[in-house]
């Protein structure tokens, strides 16, 4: 196929030229009914906010330009089929889970999954079998899955339907995906990959192995992260053994019937951009990330890590575009550096956790901004560094799962218990630090003193905590004590 083509984009241009009179939704009618929206977003943008119609195809049942855009994307990603997704990578991840298993069935996954995965389990009632990820105790980050742990989980749960892998993790850590696929397929399990942070693996050179190249069955790719499309747009990729028709049905269970053409066309254009120019673009991203790593490591006190973390198993490979900096040695938690950079230096990072900050380097970056980041880190160290004692450096806590997320979510509960009084109780809701959106507690897990301490510490350090019904996260909902399990 000709990757220079962008069928949805071309159809939109044609549509604009035809000056079709709108007696359909959206009601703003090319923006005329909402002048302030036009002044905010621009005329060109608002004019393309249209509904599905014959010349523009329909995302719920693609037969023309969207179908063609999906075929082009499938070829570009080396997938059997690609689905354009408009509900974020969350919708792609949930489609994978809902496709692979149902109520009463098991799915193997690492505990540091994105909330979207466990949310899907609340919906479909499947049972999670957690594989604890390996952790780097110094950096306080979860690593990939060890092959031995995957093997054990499969042996102990031979009836599991699928295994889900985060590859790469938010921090750029890759597992031995090829080996995991091999073992899972030997046992008749599907392999689902949350590849939200790995779009560029498909287009850059010298990148870690992609899900599709490793033979995985389904993968969720956040085109809007490293791929450059609009926020909320994403791709779901499937391998040759997955029924595309069935996946489409699953997608349509929850997907909007009024998909935004701004999102759809941004996927189409971004796929074309990466297919045509991805190699050069990501070579530049890698060069910038390498430069920043070198400069940051020259400062002293910060540790910007890279491929030296590779250990052949739980860090099988490392994403060279990821710029994560360990900050505890200057006496500041990652979240503190993250807040200082935003409030005092006008620099917004992707995330700050207990021990690290992550600066997202992508195809839109320029050297001059990287110089600012490096100099700001120098200045933060000069102005704010402290003695490091008293800093919590352990991020990952092994969960104790008592019941399935669905059972817990719908169980009779005792509401709004002060968090300090919840030790030993079973939580019915999520508690997450955002970003990265990985749960500290998920529905059905036992609350421990360690978890309570961690939540209180994270709050004190200024982390954004989300999930519980109580938006201040001072109280949690737990299972009624009389209920026995």
């Amino acid at each position, binding site marked *: 196929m000709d990757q220079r083509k962008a069928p949805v984009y071309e159809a939109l241009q044609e549509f604009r030229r035809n000056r079709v009179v709108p007696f359909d939704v959206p009601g703003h009618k090319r923006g005329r009914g909402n002048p302030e929206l036009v002044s905010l977003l621009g005329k060109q943008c608002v004019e393309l906010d249209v509904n599905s119609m014959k010349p523009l195809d329909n995302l719920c049942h693609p037969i023309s330009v969207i179908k063609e855009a999906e075929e082009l994307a499938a070829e570009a990603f080396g997938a059997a089929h690609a689905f354009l997704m408009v509900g974020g990578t969350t919708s792609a991840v949930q489609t994978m889970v809902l496709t692979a298993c149902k109520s009463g069935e098991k799915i193997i996954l690492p505990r540091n999954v994105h909330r979207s995965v466990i949310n899907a389990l609340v919906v479909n009632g499947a049972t999670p079998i957690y594989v604890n990820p390996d952790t780097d105790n110094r950096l306080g980050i979860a690593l990939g899955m060890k092959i031995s742990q995957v093997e054990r989980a499969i042996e102990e749960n031979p009836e599991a339907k699928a295994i889900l892998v985060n590859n790469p993790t938010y921090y750029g850590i890759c597992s031995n995906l090829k080996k995991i696929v091999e073992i899972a397929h030997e046992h008749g399990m599907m392999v689902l990959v949350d590849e939200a942070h790995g779009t560029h693996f498909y287009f850059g050179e010298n990148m870690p192995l992609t899900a599709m190249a490793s033979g995985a069955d389904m993968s969720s790719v956040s085109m809007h992260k490293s791929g450059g499309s609009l926020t909320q747009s994403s791709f779901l990729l499937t391998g040759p053994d997955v029924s595309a028709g069935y996946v489409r049905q699953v997608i349509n269970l929850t997907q909007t019937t009024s998909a935004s053409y701004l999102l759809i066309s941004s996927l189409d254009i971004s796929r074309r951009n990466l297919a045509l120019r991805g190699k050069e673009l990501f070579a530049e991203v890698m060069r910038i990330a390498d430069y920043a790593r070198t400069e940051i490591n020259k400062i002293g006190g910060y540790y910007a890590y890279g491929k030296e973390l590779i250990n052949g198993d739980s860090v099988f490979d490392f994403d060279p575009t990821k710029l994560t900096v360990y900050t505890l040695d200057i006496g500041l938690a990652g979240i503190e550096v993250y807040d200082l950079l935003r409030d005092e*230096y006008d620099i917004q990072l992707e995330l700050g956790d207990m021990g690290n900050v992550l600066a997202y380097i992508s195809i839109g970056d320029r050297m001059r901004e990287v110089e600012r980041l490096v100099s700001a880190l*120098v200045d933060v160290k000069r102005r704010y560094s402290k003695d490091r004692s008293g800093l919590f450096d352990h991020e990952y806590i092994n969960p104790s799962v008592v019941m399935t997320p669905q059972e817990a979510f719908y169980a009779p509960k005792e509401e709004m218990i002060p968090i300090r009084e919840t030790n030993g109780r079973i939580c019915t809701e999520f508690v997450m630090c955002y970003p990265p959106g990985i749960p500290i507690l998920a529905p059905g897990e036992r609350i421990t003193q360690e978890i309570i301490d961690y939540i209180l510490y994270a709050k004190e350090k200024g982390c954004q905590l989300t999930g519980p019904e109580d938006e201040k996260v001072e109280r949690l909902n737990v299972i009624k004590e009389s209920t026995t399990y």
Partner: protein
Amino acid sequence: MEFWFTELHTPNVKFSVKVDKHLYTSENDLGRVDIFESPEFGRFLAVDGYIILTQRDEFIYDEMLAHVPMAVNPNVEKILVFGSGDGGVVRELLKYKTIKAIDLIEINEGVVQACRQYFPEMAESLDDPRVTIYTENALRFIRHIENEYDLIIVDSAGFYGPGESLLTREFYGSCYKALKADGIMVNQHQSPFYEEDRVETQKAHKRIVNNFPICRVYQAHIPSYPSGYWLFGFASKKFRPVIDLDAEAWNQLGIKTDYYTTNLHKGCFALPAYVERMLADVERIYD
């Protein structure tokens, strides 16, 4: 035929200069450089469509950046200048025999080359053996330097674009660190008059106040700049700009100027009420 150069001072205000000739143009990733010949302002240099200097009024800007700090501390020997690739500020500094070294950081080599050709009377100062030119990113150059300079002059081209990094907290922090214990930093500080410029003036002041114990602002009249009214910042670790001025000593140096005088020095720190207020508004925000 009428040929006019027009610069938008705000989205609603235009400033136009009648032009005789378009002498030079070049463009790279750092911006577009143009040089024009005009009947009123003589030759003038524009970067990305904004007037940076004109032969007619550059003396005001260059003298105010150079002589104000030099008159406060005549013992300055080692100076770092950011921007000023035209050589105007350096020309003024070289009037002091006591200065031993001037390092000039101009990331846009195109500016230096164009100025050497079209403004030789200013740019010839750059050939003085005391001057070293670095074409490097300013932040990269300065971030590891400590306790090295007596004076830093920040002649940023504008608040947006490649010069933007010269108006950041990390930059002023690095300058503080690179200065000796009695060091002075002066910077161009934008105009307080139009709304968009005012916001940036306040932001820069807040960033500087955050780093230096002594921070004052002074003013000059620059006809070719937006509103014609311009501010400069004086920040230091020890010297106070008016009290520590030794006017007699400076006047004995016999330096010829066209704008700067020691009387003007004392007066230029007296600011209009609205400017005092806008600066005070950000001085009160501590962290």
